[in-house]
């Protein structure tokens, strides 16, 4: 591991100023950063410890929504009563990710910024446009079983590994940040970037900009939500395909649906195609199958990952069936 300067920040402003000045990385749980620093994939010259910042609370907002501090640990968010009762998809997604030890460390802000598990990104012996822009992509012609079928480019096909972010996509979360130019509010849906020709740019954060909290809107009564994760093991494994559904059904018809996928896209993948195929339609198996086809219509398989397309369709159909069965 390369040497770095370490400092602790006790206010958000100090953290932001310090990171902007030193070109530093923020560290909270450390579960991604320390891992990748050991592999020399990330080599920050300065590390700003933000664990002392007062960003570790979960609060109900006056309008019924939820405000989640960036330092709330995954295990605490998953077991929060309000989250379990009103945003079940989020609790389920969190509990399907990583191990209990890692969930005790990993934070809300850090999870949103998790790095891909692409083998070639994690191994500095291989070219990788995300790690070293312009060096090439070893996954395109390599072993690409875990890679993306949606949102890829000739430069990168790495998936975003977060489960939590997929649930938050379906919940239409908003990210709140603080940077050297002040505060920003960004819809999560607009936060992530597809790789295009600049896979090293993964989101809209500017250098030194810190996620301070995430807000979730209140859900209409009767909303049901669920997360289903399909993977090679029953526990402690990244998604091959996952589906997050947040849905309202009334009088046998889908009133409102928010659909997101994990494991198949270069970012947590919101599917407006699936939502459009569902809303206003009868909550039937035929509708669900049409939504699944619509969601994957633009999918482009690589040599080893074509199975993900069918897997994602079935994940969506199963979650839709589960959430629309009469309660």
């Amino acid at each position, binding site marked *: *591991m*390369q*040497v*770095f*300067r*370490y400092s602790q920040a006790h206010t958000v402003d100090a953290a932001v100023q310090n990171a902007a000045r030193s070109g530093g990385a923020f*560290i909270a*749980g*450390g*579960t991604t950063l*320390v*891992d990748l*620093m*050991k*592999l020399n994939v990330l080599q920050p010259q300065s*590390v700003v*410890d933000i*664990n002392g910042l007062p960003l570790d609370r979960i609060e109900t907002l006056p309008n019924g929504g939820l405000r989640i501090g960036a330092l709330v640990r995954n*295990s605490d968010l998953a*077991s929060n009563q309000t989250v379990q009762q009103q945003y079940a998809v989020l609790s389920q997604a969190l509990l399907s990710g*990583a*191990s*209990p*030890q*890692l969930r*005790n*460390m990993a934070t809300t802000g850090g999870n949103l910024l998790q790095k891909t598990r692409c083998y070639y990104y994690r191994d500095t012996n291989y070219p990788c446009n995300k790690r070293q822009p312009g060096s090439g992509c070893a996954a395109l012609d390599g072993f690409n079983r875990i890679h993306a079928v949606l949102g890829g480019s000739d430069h990168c096909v790495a998936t975003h590994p977060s489960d939590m972010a997929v649930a938050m996509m379906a919940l239409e979360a908003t990210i709140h940040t603080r940077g050297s130019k002040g505060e920003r509010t960004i819809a999560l849906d607009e936060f992530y970037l597809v790789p295009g020709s600049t896979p090293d740019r993964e989101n809209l954060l500017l250098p030194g900009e810190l996620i301070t909290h995430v807000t979730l809107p209140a859900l209409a009564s009767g909303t049901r939500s669920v997360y289903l994760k399909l993977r090679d093991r*029953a*526990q*402690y494994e990244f998604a091959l395909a996952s589906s997050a559904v947040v849905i309202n059904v009334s009088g046998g018809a889908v009133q409102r649906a928010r659909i997101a996928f994990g494991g198949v896209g270069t970012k947590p993948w919101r599917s407006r195609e699936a939502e459009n195929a569902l809303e206003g339609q009868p909550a039937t198996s035929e509708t669900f199958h049409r939504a699944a086809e619509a969601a994957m219509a633009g999918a482009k398989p690589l040599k080893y990952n074509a199975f993900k397309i069918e897997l994602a369709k079935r994940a969506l159909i199963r979650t839709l069936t589960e959430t629309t069965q009469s309660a």
Partner: protein
Amino acid sequence: MDQPKNPLLDTQEADTGKKPTTDQEREPTLGRFSRRSFLAQLGAAGVAATASPLAHATETEAPEKESPPRVPGAVPVTLNINGKEYRVRLEPRVTLLDALRDHLQLFGTKKGCDHGQCGACTVHVNGRRVNSCLSFAIMHQGDKITTIEGLAQNGQLSPVQQAFLDHDGFQCGYCTPGQIMSATALLHEPIGPDDNAVRAAMSGNICRCGAYNNIVAAVQQARARKTA
């Protein structure tokens, strides 16, 4: 030891400074170099520089009690481990795991993958189980850290330790400290009662020997006795 150990240098030989009395055939050779010819090339200064700390080391049984070697970039760090305060100088890049093992002689916590995948390094920070390999020690000043060495009280094994013995919850034993730290924390976590819930809650601890069935039995015994 504050000098890198020279694999070609025999401490006994360095200690006495005498040439070996044995014949030529007993000299180990490495490639084209015999040990003797290598030493000759080092020159007197090189031998003197490497020999003296090694000679010292052979005379000292316990680790040195004086202040630890200074490392560039190291800063004073105070850690509270098993109720005891430890003051050390650590570089910021030293993980909590490496601090325990390499600086504090607490070898119970094991290094497996060193990337948060195997769970062998599991310790408790403020009562919660974490992977000590993925955290810098310097981030834990003021935290209460518990390692496997801190579970037994007054010579009495903890209920989880006893349960692992009762159910033979290990084979080689390397993953066991991490398994026991996870299982101990699990007693206070919101998980379901059945074996599958235990398997899920223990999924962050890999056992290459495959003692999983006995581990689950041990965890269930400890949970039953806790609620009994």
